[in-house]
């Protein structure tokens, strides 16, 4: 029998699906649910259920991947109504009913179940063998922010092993470089739009983290791209300071099928009043001029 907290997780997924029906361009999950998405959801609840949910409540109860406590019943009622039930009680009743009706069918499929269990055991064993083998031949090194000492998001770094002028990309998992440990040492070049480039020679037994120096202006830009409308005046002044007059912003469209270009004024306008389009942008490259001002930004539109 499902626990109420499990049913709440299920309900959260249904809320996301309902949200996607109204905003078909949202393809993420609760983790990637932006402040704009939160505003849209609040509005959706206001119009669909005629109830109000605060931004803070969504951050506390819906954004986290795991929830330790069940939210208040009246809030569960609102979410259940949003996904098409009269309230939480009906939601729980219907989902328990689905489980109960599913049980007898499961009993009649014993042979099938054995087959699947057998398959799962074999697959599990294969994974264990692979992991053991992989861990023997792979050296992992964490990459951290030199100022905060926090691990750097894997998506923000690119690393290559350089050997005889040939660059081989390095896989990064959970902020850790996955290096083949066959060689005694390897020259690694790390690049990131938000950190200063670094070239480092890593020895076979090294496991000390690599620290990267944050690049101030790109870091500020990163913050601006994630911000909401608050402090727009400060943002406007700071953008004037960090962006070069000759700034060229290239926004690569889906699957690299085209590109849009923005100049300093156009790009600043979109950051001062952060729009839906900005929330779908991922910076992949930032270049600066001799005055350290940003003069080129390459972005992928997700």
């Amino acid at each position, binding site marked *: 029998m499902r626990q109420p907290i499990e049913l709440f997780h299920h309900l959260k997924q249904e809320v996301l699906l309902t949200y996607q029906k109204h905003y078909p361009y949202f393809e993420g999950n609760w983790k990637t649910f932006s402040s704009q998405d939160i505003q849209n959801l609040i509005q959706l609840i206001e*119009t669909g259920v005629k109830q109000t949910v605060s931004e803070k409540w969504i951050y506390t109860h819906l954004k986290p991947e795991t929830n330790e406590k069940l939210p208040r019943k009246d809030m569960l009622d609102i979410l259940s109504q949003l996904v098409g039930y009269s309230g939480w009680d009906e939601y729980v009743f219907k989902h328990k009913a689905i489980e109960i009706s599913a049980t007898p069918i499961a009993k009649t499929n014993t042979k099938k179940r054995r087959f699947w269990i057998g398959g799962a055991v074999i697959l599990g064993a294969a994974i264990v063998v692979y992991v053991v083998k992989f861990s023997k031949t792979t050296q992992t090194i964490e990459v951290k922010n030199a100022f905060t000492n926090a691990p750097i998001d894997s998506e923000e770094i690119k690393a290559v092993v350089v050997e005889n002028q040939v660059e081989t990309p390095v896989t990064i998992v959970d902020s850790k470089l996955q290096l083949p440990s066959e060689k005694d040492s390897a020259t690694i070049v790390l690049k990131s739009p938000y950190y200063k480039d670094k070239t480092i020679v890593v020895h076979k037994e090294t496991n000390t983290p690599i620290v990267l120096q944050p690049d101030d202006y790109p870091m500020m830009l990163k913050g601006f791209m994630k911000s909401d409308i608050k402090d727009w005046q400060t943002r406007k002044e700071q953008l004037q300071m960090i962006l070069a007059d000759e700034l060229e912003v290239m926004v690569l469209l889906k699957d690299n099928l085209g590109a849009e270009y923005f100049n300093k004024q156009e790009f600043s306008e979109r950051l001062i009043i952060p729009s839906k389009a900005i929330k779908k942008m991922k910076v992949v490259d930032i270049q600066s001029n001799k005055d350290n001002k940003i003069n080129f930004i390459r972005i992928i539109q997700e």
Partner: protein
Amino acid sequence: MLRSFFIISTLLTSFCLMGQNANLPAATAIKANFTIASIKAYQESATLKVEDYYYYLNLVSSTTTAEDLKAEVKTTLFSLFEDKNAKVLDVTTTTPTTINLTDLLAKIENQDYSFTLSNFENSIVAADYWTTKYQLTIHQKETQTEQICFQRVLFKPTTKTFGTTKKEIWTLFLGEITF
């Protein structure tokens, strides 16, 4: 001989010029410059601009938006359009009518309108534009109205300034709305 050559070449040149006047030159025709897949990518990007347009309208009409911020929002909103007097949907009326964009902004201020958009579809591509169809829901206080809109999206080369450099760039602009 020389005379007949002159007459033939004059006639040929005239036909060529007449042909070019009939259509946009190939250099500025969308289909002549982009593949179907590429046009689709630009069309998807343009829908984000339509969503941004209604988000900015929402900010302009909100009673909680400060006056200086509203001025900033209007500048950004106008930059989405090729013409700041483009005819757009008058969201304040119950029967569908069009209004100049500038007039609409004045009309909706402090009226607390908000909008939701769904069901985007794009038409076939004309020489330098296509039409995006979408369902618009207009919310104000307790009332809610729905309207199917057809918005023109222009896509053409324009000259952009990057510091001291000027470049010819293919640019997306929002245009008039019909229903």
